[in-house]
């Protein structure tokens, strides 16, 4: 089996096709292997988020091809894409996107509700999960992976920014996805919380998970193994990080 997880060929995304068209992603091609930690770096407006959203199946490219686990994603139906988002991808947003007025527990639980095979009402798994133990265990495990177990009954709006982002990562982890896509996960955080997030991402990567991180800071990008530099929608460099930074307490991000 090939080790390639993601392969894009001549991928483009054009917003507002017509007179005021914006080529947010302009004819990019690259591959990402399983278990890699890749940073996508570039200035504001260069198309990082757009590219990330396409890789995470939150949006579709205007042209070009995207192979995920060797399969052409053009052939997937809407519902299949929803299941891929649910099981194979964990998305972490710059603005957290937790449900307001909802507990940490329920936020992390959310992807489980949309996990089709586990929620067949008559399946044994579901009948067990009705008793809540298995599910609860899973949620607590995801929360302890991000060090948020102690806030399980808090409401999302009672958390600090860093805590919110860690809960969001727990939510991304809950279905044990192949890959974590994080779009400027530290962008709204102070450096201490940012380091904690980077530490979690590095730990997840060391456990074998593929990570793609969007950032515009070189320093943050150097926590990854590889940096894709993007400018005006084009990849201008694809380089290995020679000296990978190790996120640890006491370090200053930025």
């Amino acid at each position, binding site marked *: 089996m090939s080790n390639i997880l993601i392969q894009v060929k001549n991928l483009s995304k054009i917003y507002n096709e017509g007179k005021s068209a914006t080529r947010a992603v302009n004819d990019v091609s690259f591959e990402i292997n399983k278990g890699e930690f890749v940073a996508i770096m570039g200035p504001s407006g260069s198309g990082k988020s757009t590219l990330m*959203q396409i890789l*995470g199946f*939150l*949006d*579709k490219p205007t042209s070009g091809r995207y192979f995920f686990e060797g399969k052409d994603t053009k052939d997937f139906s*809407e*519902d299949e894409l*929803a*299941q891929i*988002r*649910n*099981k194979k991808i964990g*998305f972490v*947003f710059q603005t957290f*996107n937790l*449900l*307001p*007025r*909802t507990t940490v527990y*329920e936020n992390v639980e*959310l*992807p489980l*509700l*949309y*996990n*089709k095979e586990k*929620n*067949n*009402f008559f399946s044994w798994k579901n009948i067990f999960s009705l008793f809540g133990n298995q599910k609860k265990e899973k949620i607590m495990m995801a929360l302890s992976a991000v060090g948020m177990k102690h806030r399980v009954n808090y409401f999302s709006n009672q958390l600090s920014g860093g805590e919110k982002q860690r809960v969001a990562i727990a*939510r991304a982890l809950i*279905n044990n996805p192949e890959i974590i896509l994080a779009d400027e996960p530290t962008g709204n955080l102070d450096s201490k919380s940012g380091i904690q997030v980077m530490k979690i991402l590095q730990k997840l990567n060391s456990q074998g998970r593929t990570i793609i991180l969007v950032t515009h800071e070189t320093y943050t990008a150097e926590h990854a193994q590889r940096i894709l530099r993007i400018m005006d929608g084009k990849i201008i460099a694809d380089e290995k990080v020679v000296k990978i930074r190790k996120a640890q307490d006491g370090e200053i991000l930025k």
Partner: protein
Amino acid sequence: MKLFIPLKLAFKNLQSNKARTAFSVLGIVIGTASVIAVMSLGAGLKNFVVGQVEIFGTDIVELKIKTPKTKQISAANVSSMAGGAQITTLTLDDIEAVSKLSNIGSWYGGILGQEVANVGEKNKQVFIFGVTADIIKVDKNFKLRSGMMFSGEDDKNLSRVVVLGSKLKETFFPEGEAVGKFVKIKGQRYRIIGVAEERGVSGFFDFDNVVYIPVQTLQKKIMGIKHIQFAIYKIIDMRKADLTLMEITDLMRERHNIKDSAEDDFAVVSILETKAILDKIFSIINFLLLGLVSISLLVSGVGIMNVMYVAVSERTKEIGLRKSIGADNADILRQFTVESIILALIGGAGGILIGYIFSNAVSYVANQAGFSVQLKVDWQTIAIAFSFSALTGVFFGFYPARKASRMAPTESLRKE
């Protein structure tokens, strides 16, 4: 996502934003309640009007004078009567002859005059209603409060006796008994033998400001005339009413030597004809009610639509998030439909309750104020109001959710 989880999820979501839930429920409550209120008010008003008409009795025929060559209910007849064109051809003999017809039961007849009446220093211009004694058998709204009614003998003997309307009694004898006292009309003393029960203003005529007097006493002692104006007959068998009307008409034409119906100096009016007019009025009332109900449906529909549409639209971002973590369109639709149904059920039930309480409160207040209005909330009203609000609520919860679910997750996530 089978049934159990969406239900649990829906309750959780409705709970998590209590203000939004409360507004949506309130919108549906108000919508449902106002439709129920308007429908029951309309039905109540209609019943009130029907009731008022039926008080006069449905088994009654009136024979009255009419200006020849005019229609009985016409401006020409009314204005010629008001202009003093007296029709003096109808007599007590006429109306008595008619009363002998086979299908006619009890009856009375009479004429209305105006004179100044006085008791001591008090003078008052009053209506004097000369009637035959049987008015008390025929007119169910004519009842005595005290004393007694004059008899057929009093009429024959031209007795100088009167029965006072309730307001006249208050005017002339504010304190103490009136029965046994005397009232002066045209300089002659009349003994008061009874006082009528209050009956309120009916149409434009105030029966409580009237002096009732034996018809022949009025004709001969006060007005100096031989004619009368009308007679009221009770029909024994209403199924033969049409025939009886024709018999009355034939008999009257024969007695008055009339060959051409255009020359009729009388009119025979029955509730049957009045009913035709009433039916017309009721069809207009029904039409108005329909309009009123349509407007209230429209207004509450728009209200519910707004509340639901806004409530769901402001959750576009939430829909985007749910999709980005793996919800498919069916999941989103199921969730919002279940939530809307719950809102519609709660709101609809609340609306029925409030509409019901409102209708009963209005009935109560109206009854206290002396109107026998009964607002009825029947099951059709409830069914229409409830199903309309519920369907509107569910549809306008479903529709924006469907719109949002079809957007790409990035697009809905951008919405604030």
